[in-house]
């Protein structure tokens, strides 16, 4: 499905270049659920952006369904079947939720179909379908709408960048169920960047990225035990008590 081969990424720094990712090689197989975890600032979000085409690697290659997509732009990759859910969903003055879902589905989605996607992410559809995707929506609501746009696309690969970031505990607990359902039903492959133990628990494979490198990679049964109790696999309460946590 998706293969990254020796991918590196740098940004300009005061002196020369600063390395963000180095020599990343990952494969996401068909119908796999892969969770990427690791400390903050380790390069996880950059990895997601490289897959979506928002950033371009300085070296290495990216293949999607055997096609080399390294040089392709965001639009082309999206149309090949890659979806990307932002860590901080974007707001649009004037665009309504149904407009966004229709753009995502690339068809004149009926209200009933659009409502279906909203229900999937736990939003009461009739309250939201005509809402503007603007500052009147809370962080949790925006996150759900963002996930609904990815569902509406129904692509072969969906990448979610920290769906838990910036939302309250109540919304988060419900959101995990959305991913659990997605895990059960979805046809395509899913990659989620997350620190959440409950998300890690449903992974087929886990990739740990720290300081721009892959430090661990393998099936959940192999990787997860070594992560429990670290910041790479926190439970929902620890998320709200900070690093190290207390119960």
């Amino acid at each position, binding site marked *: 499905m998706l293969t990254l081969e020796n991918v590196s990424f740098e940004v300009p720094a005061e002196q020369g270049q600063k390395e963000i990712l180095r020599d990343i090689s990952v494969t996401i197989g068909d119908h796999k659920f892969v969770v990427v975890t690791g400390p903050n600032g380790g390069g996880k979000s950059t990895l997601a952006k490289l897959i979506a085409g928002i950033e371009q690697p300085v070296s290495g290659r990216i293949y999607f369904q055997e096609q080399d997509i390294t040089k392709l732009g965001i639009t082309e990759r999206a149309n090949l079947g890659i979806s990307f859910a932002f860590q901080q969903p*974007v707001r649009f003055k004037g665009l309504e939720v149904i407009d966004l879902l229709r*753009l995502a589905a690339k068809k004149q989605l009926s209200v009933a179909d659009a409502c279906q996607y909203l229900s999937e992410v736990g939003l009461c559809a009739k309250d939201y379908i005509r809402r503007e995707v603007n500052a009147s929506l809370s962080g949790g609501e925006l996150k759900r709408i963002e996930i609904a746009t990815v569902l509406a696309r129904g692509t072969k690969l969906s990448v979610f960048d920290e769906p838990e970031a910036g939302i309250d505990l109540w919304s988060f607990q419900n959101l995990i169920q959305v991913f659990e359902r997605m895990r059960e039903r979805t046809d395509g492959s899913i990659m989620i960047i997350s620190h959440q133990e409950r998300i890690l628990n449903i992974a087929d494979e886990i990739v740990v990225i720290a300081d721009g490198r892959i430090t661990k990679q393998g099936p959940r049964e192999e990787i997860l035990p070594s992560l429990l109790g670290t910041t790479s696999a926190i439970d929902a309460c620890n998320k709200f008590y900070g690093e190290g946590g207390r119960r």
Partner: protein
Amino acid sequence: MDRIQQRILEEVAGLHSVPEGAYNLRADGQTAGRSTTAHIDIISKEDGSGIDIRVLPGTKNESVHIPVVLSRSGLKEVVYNDFYIGEDSDIVIVAGCGIHNCGDQDSQHDGIHRFYLEKNARVKYVEKHYGEGDGSGQRILNPGTEVHLEEGASMEMEMVQIRGVDSTVRTTTAELAAGARLVVRERLLTHGSQKAVSHYTVRLNGAGASADVVSRSVAQDTSYQEFNSRIVGNAPCSGHTECDAIIMGQARILAVPQLEANDLDAALIHEAAIGKIAGEQLIKLMTLGLTEQEAEEQIINGFLK
């Protein structure tokens, strides 16, 4: 009416044929059609400078269409339309002006509208401007609007000008008595070297009067926009004005919201924001498979919806 005029009529008033209810259609400086109802009368001014529209008290759920079409290059006109809206009536007025200019002379229509709403009258007013034609002559529209609201009267104005008009100076003044309410929604898109200026002065003279004047605009290419909105609170009242603009290319925008409180209990608020389309908005829509240009169009269409 010829086909060009019919098409422009459809653009400005959404009309495919003769509208229901009262109407006065003006084409190239002449009256091209008129209809009145039992409750709404339209009378030409004696000096020929325009029309008076009289709506009887208690008239409900009726509409008046007064579209203007200019298809001859070089035509310049000033027209005065006065609306007298009786007590407790509730009507819709659809105005609008379309210019087709493919000649090299300027075409200009300056419509001066005066509204006198009696107690508790309600009006929804829709005005659309449209210009087309590939001539070098300018398409110029300078609407002047005066609104007088008696106690408890309310008026909602929707003003739309999307592309096509080279130069506009819009001047709107309103006087509100106790309990009267004014809502203005302006939507504007300028491109090329177009220029659009809007001046609003709203005086809240009676207790409980309220006004909400909001403009959303997009300025592209080298166009210039000026939004000058002034709300004066002369009584315990509430007023809000807002200008929200997207700037593109080498366009320029001047936003001048002004508030004047002459009463301790005048609650007045203004907001103004000018900014380009956020890069992350484009990226989000591109991750849904849109090209950058399609993404830009969607953002603008949504913003001006």
